């Protein structure tokens, strides 16, 4: 038998099928995703409902794939409570098909802002903690203060605000920022961190 993807691709020749398929990717998928994220963050539907300022029965509907009435406003409210992003976009059908056939179980639970490892590249911090105003300067293209030491990444479990970053990315980031760098190694010879100081 042909692959799931090729079978669905054949069905996509039918416009009605592909339009319905797009709708069901939202209405069948998001309730399961909402449920997974809610279960990790809240003790109950009631607790989640409280955070949203809604009733428990409303949350129950949200988690029901047969409800089918998710509004953008609702999704934005949920995203804010879960501290995750929300993307609504028009895309080619090939992307819909790829997403439907290459999903993993990780898809169902999105990391919060603080857990998001993908943000580690953007987390530039002093050794004593994050320096948001300095990050903002960088975002505007301003030069950092002279002599400031920047820790761009740690190995192992340690990390900036719980956000570890692969050390191999540090040189690239430092280079992009026009910062010269040094590499510090621990006594055991294991690379523990890289420090970069502005010129």
């Amino acid at each position, binding site marked *: *038998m*042909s692959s*799931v993807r090729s*079978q*669905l691709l*054949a*069905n996509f*020749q*039918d416009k*009605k*099928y592909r339009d*319905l*398929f797009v709708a*069901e*990717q939202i209405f*069948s*998928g998001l*309730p*399961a995703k909402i*449920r*997974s994220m809610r279960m990790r963050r809240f003790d109950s539907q009631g607790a989640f409902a409280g955070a949203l300022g809604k009733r428990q029965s409303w949350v129950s509907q949200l*988690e*029901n*794939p*047969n409800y089918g009435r998710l509004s953008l406003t609702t999704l934005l409210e949920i995203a804010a409570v879960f501290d995750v992003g929300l993307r609504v976009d028009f895309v080619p059908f090939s992307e819909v098909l790829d997403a*439907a*056939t290459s*999903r*993993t*179980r990780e*898809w*169902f639970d999105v990391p919060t802002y603080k857990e998001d490892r993908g943000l580690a590249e953007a987390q530039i911090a002093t050794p004593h903690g994050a320096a948001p105003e300095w990050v903002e300067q960088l975002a505007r293209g301003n030069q950092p203060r002279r002599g400031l030491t920047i820790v761009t990444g740690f190995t192992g479990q340690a990390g900036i605000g719980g956000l570890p970053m692969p050390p191999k990315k540090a040189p690239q980031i430092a280079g992009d920022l026009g910062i010269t760098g040094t590499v510090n190694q621990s006594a055991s010879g294991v690379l523990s961190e890289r420090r970069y100081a502005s010129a």
Partner: protein
Amino acid sequence: MPLWTFRDYLDAGGTNVIRQWMDSDEVPLEAAVKIDTRILFLADLPVWPPQYVSAITGWPDLLELRVVYAGNQYRPLGFYGPGYEFTIVHAAVEKRKLPRHVLVTATERMNIVRSDRRRSCAHEFRKKSTAG
């Protein structure tokens, strides 16, 4: 790679009766797409939410996918195992309690598949009308 594999019951002649049912006039395309999509999502979920799949009281081995369209309930019936497999053996469109004969047939088919795996195949997503 999906965690779960969904399978369909084949009759003695090798016909996929689940796909046949989904392609029949009894199941509008809207409901058929819902079933296919639920299968795709469930295949990646380690634990299935009760809003998607539920047990059937009095029939401990059978479960049903809960699909609603236009006020009707489309209820594919199946069983777990072996491992991360779920085999759909029967289906019904029924708003209320499932008739006993439907559950008896589902149980008979479940026993057939359990004793002869060749009486099932990977779930067929391709509609008959688009089959090449």
